[in-house]
Every structure is written in structure tokens, then in C-alpha cells.
């Protein structure tokens, strides 16, 4: 819904439409997290891509998106999971669904940035 939109219906219908819209907006946040995860971890995508070589551009994107999926499946470090995946395990039935989809999903979470920890940083004493 946008500001200024007009709706017709009963109060209950309008209220329900508004609540539905709130949930859509809230869930849309996951797309934002996904985008931030991609652009945050693949810094190369923040730099201008080559304009003349369509294949190298497409290949670069395909590499980044496949790597993202690989990392999500193996390590599971992203905000979307942190919010939604605990929902899987709240009941016994959901726990079973979780176990059956183990291969599709992911493993342990890591906290530390994998690149910067290999570089020296000054420590002042």
C-alpha cells in the first residue's frame, strides 16, 4: 500500500488489508538482508563492472551468487536464517521438517570475518 491509496470495504476488510500489508513489508525485509549480504561480502560487486564484456560480467555474478548459496548451505551465516530458522524448531513436527531438509540447508555458524583475521592490525599498549 502507498500513502494516499483509497480502499473500499467494511472496516474489518480494510483493517485486514492493512495488517496483511504490514506483514508483506516486514517479510520484504528479508530481500534487503539478502541484498546486503551479497553486496557486503562480495565487495567486487560494489565496484563498476566491465561494460564491454557481457560474458565476464555474467560470470562474475554467477560466481558470487553460487558462492553465496554454497556458504549459506555449508556455514549458514546470514541474517535471514538468524530470524526465520528458529521458527523451524519450535514444535516436534517442525523439528522433523528441519531434519529432513538438512542437506538443503546449512551447518554451523561462524562469527569471525574470514578475510580480515589474516591481516595484522596494530594493537596499542
Amino acid at each position, binding site marked *: 500500500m502507498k500513502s494516499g491509496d483509497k480502499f473500499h470495504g467494511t472496516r474489518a476488510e480494510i483493517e485486514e488489508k492493512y495488517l496483511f500489508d504490514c506483514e508483506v513489508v*516486514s517479510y520484504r525485509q528479508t530481500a534487503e538482508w539478502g541484498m546486503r549480504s551479497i553486496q557486503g561480502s562480495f565487495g567486487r560487486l560494489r565496484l563498476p563492472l566491465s561494460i564491454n564484456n557481457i560474458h565476464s560480467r555474467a560470470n562474475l555474478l554467477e560466481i558470487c551468487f*553460487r558462492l553465496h*548459496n554454497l556458504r549459506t548451505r555449508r556455514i549458514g551465516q546470514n541474517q535471514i*536464517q538468524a530470524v526465520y530458522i528458529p*521458527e523451524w524448531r519450535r514444535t516436534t513436527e517442525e523439528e522433523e521438517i528441519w531434519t529432513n531438509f538438512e542437506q538443503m540447508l546449512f551447518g554451523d555458524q561462524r562469527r569471525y570475518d574470514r578475510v580480515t583475521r589474516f591481516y595484522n592490525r596494530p594493537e596499542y599498549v
Partner: protein
Amino acid sequence: MTPITRADAGAGDPRPGGRSLDVHGALGLVLHYLNSTMLETSLQQLFGLIPATVSRYIIFGLDILLETLRQMPGAKIRWPETPQEFQAYNDVIVARHPRLHSAFATIDGLNLMTEASDDIDIENATYNAWLSAHFISSVLVFAPDGMIFFFQYSHTTQIIC
């Protein structure tokens, strides 16, 4: 084994003993290139290579990485295939958003900056007056667990499995 390709010479026999980086080094170089915005000069210093070698290794390494990822089941980009998969994703969404009965993923656009082009048709296709820069637009579909189901960019269709 193939030789590392270079634009200024023909393909000779591979010289694995004469390579500047081993396979771990080459992968490390490529991953640093992808995951950072550092200039190639920084990569040269980190890996102890001259500029031409860094460029060649990046191009060569990216090709190998792509071929490898295409063969790895864990790196697949694919839609859910069974009703059970769709239902499982919907269950996760509905647990937090009870009114989104049919939702299984979310979709959004991503604008990636490109260089300007001399070709006027490409220039016209990529320049975005609203954002005052040149972009390639793409669309991504994300699952509730953060997986990418699908992506397509600009006027070429990429369906990836």
C-alpha cells in the same frame, strides 16, 4: 592441465613447476579479489606478484572457480522442485507472518554499477538518469533461509541450475 592463458603469447605447454602461485594461492587470490574492493596493487603486495601476473591469475582463476562451482551440488541456484519444499518454506514464513499464506520467497532488484560505454546503444540501456550513473539491473529471488532461487539481469535471461 592447461597453461595459464595470456593475451600476449600463444598457448605453450603448461609449466606447473614454474607457476608463481600454487592452487591454494590462486584460490586465495581469487577469493580476495571477489570479497574485497582492494586495488590490484594491494593484491600484488599481498601475494608478491607483478601486475601482469595478478591479472592473468584472476582471469584464469575465475574461470576455474566458475566451472568448479557449476559442478558442486552445494552451489546450485535452483527453484524448489517438490510441493513439500514449497510448503516447508511457506511454513517458515507463516510462522512469523500468519497472513502470507502462499509466500515461499521474496524478490527484489539489484542495481550494479558499470563502466560507461562508447557504444551509444549500451550507454542508453545502462544510464539511469534518476540515479545519475550507469547500472546493470538484476532481479534476485531469496528463500527464507537466505538461499538464492533465481536471478536474471538486464535484457539477457539467465536461468541457472
